[in-house]
């Protein structure tokens, strides 16, 4: 490659990155339709299936115990979807959308979230053309399973050990961040680097998407703390009914 070609390559790469960062509010990263080879698409469906079954069982149990859960969870799904349409300022200056999985997990628990999160992902594919059907298994694993599990571990693990705001911030930010890390890993597994293999490819995808995803995770953490604080003062009774705050 001669000097001129090199310069063009660099300019093209820089322009692409700029266009993407500035173009539109950054969404959480979903793998688009058709991007995963059939085998990997099927693999992620199989991996996510047990979580769907467990989540659905828990929801069915809840509905038998408390019939009002049916409507509550329906509205909760809509809430998570609409929350992901909320535009929040990003720390880099442009704006972004939260995923809502951290908050959803704190409010409704990780197993319920595996089902609700999948419905939200399906609706994002069907109403926003964002994400896909064959990649639903992979996207659900990263956003509706891995993210909520991380959020839940932090929420349960740090409770009464760290200030509430810090717990909420870490749960939401790390849930968002883990979604992005898992998605990068999924892409790297499907498309390993010719010379660096899986790790090389993982670092590559991770770095490229870090530009939009790391600020997004921090913004989502801050937003979730603010929402949670407001809920604490305006909706204490509701939070107690959901079992988010202890004592009745």
């Amino acid at each position, binding site marked *: 490659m001669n000097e001129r070609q090199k310069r063009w390559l660099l300019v093209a*790469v820089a322009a692409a990155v700029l266009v993407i960062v500035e173009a539109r509010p950054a969404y959480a990263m979903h793998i688009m339709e058709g991007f995963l080879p059939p085998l990997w698409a099927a693999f992620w469906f199989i991996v996510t299936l047990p979580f769907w079954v467990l989540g659905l069982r828990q929801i069915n149990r809840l509905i038998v115990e408390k019939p009002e859960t049916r409507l509550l969870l329906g509205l909760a799904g809509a809430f998570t979807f609409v929350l992901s*349409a909320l535009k929040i300022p990003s720390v880099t200056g442009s704006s972004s959308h939260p995923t809502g999985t951290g908050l959803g997990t704190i409010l409704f628990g990780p197993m319920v979230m595996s089902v609700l999160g999948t419905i939200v992902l399906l609706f994002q594919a069907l109403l926003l053309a964002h994400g896909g059907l064959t990649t639903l298994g992979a996207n659900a694993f990263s956003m509706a399973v891995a993210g909520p599990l991380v959020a839940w571990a932090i929420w349960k693990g740090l409770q009464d050990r760290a200030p509430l705001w810090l717990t909420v911030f870490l749960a939401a930010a790390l849930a968002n961040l883990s979604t992005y890390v898992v998605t990068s890993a999924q892409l790297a597994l499907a498309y390993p680097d010719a010379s660096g293999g899986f790790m090389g490819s993982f670092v590559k995808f991770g770095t*490229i998407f870090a530009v939009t995803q790391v600020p997004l995770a921090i913004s989502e953490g801050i937003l979730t703390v603010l*929402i949670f604080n407001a809920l604490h003062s305006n*909706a204490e009774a509701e939070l107690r009914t959901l079992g988010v705050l202890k004592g009745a």
Partner: protein
Amino acid sequence: MHIIDRYAYTNAIRELDPAQKGGLALIAIILCLALDQPAVGVLTLGWMFALAVLWARVPALVFGRALLAEAPFLLLSLLGVALSVSLAPLAAPAVQLGPLWLGSSAESLAMATRLFTRALGCAAALNFLILTTPLLDLIELLRRLRVPETLIDLMSLTYRAIFVLLESLQRMTTAQATRLGYSGPWRAMRSAGLLGSQLFLDAYRRSQRLQMSLESRGLSGPLRVLPLDYRRDRRARWIGAALAASLLLVGAWR
């Protein structure tokens, strides 16, 4: 999102059985994924564009805009596939950026081209489906496919509530914006936080009111609604056959 939903309800083949439209999209997605060749991807894109614009009468611009929604992801991830980064010097063609080597190869470029066309073809098929079929029809299709009833129930509730909550969201955003609630990043963040909490309360209380009003009308179990009377079009079969045949032919020819 309102755009996709609007055309889903107003296009020329809205009344067509969702199973037929879903079948067409599924044939396209499966063949496009399985054959995995640039020519097949481009042909799928062409087919889906033609079906959406000529058959369903969705404006070409709308179809294009729906495809553009995925552009950021597609461009970024193709960059990841096409480029290799390494600490050790790479074989030409490569450039050195400090300690890093940035390079590409004929194989990875070919891979990126294949991915680009395949993803575009599949996304076009998905967009054909969502621009011609309202979500409620798709949920009805899932019900026929024996998806668990609880899930169907949650999905239809979620779909109906989304638009109600979006309206609340817009009203609250306007109210906040007219009071300078978004005049700076920190204030915007606080406003968004307040908005999120009020939205949650709104959703929570709506669910309670809905529960009460439905219970007073004797709700006990899943919410049942009548599906629409769908039209079955014999042409859809021919189109499906032609679609499959042409994709397979192009796939085998290479």
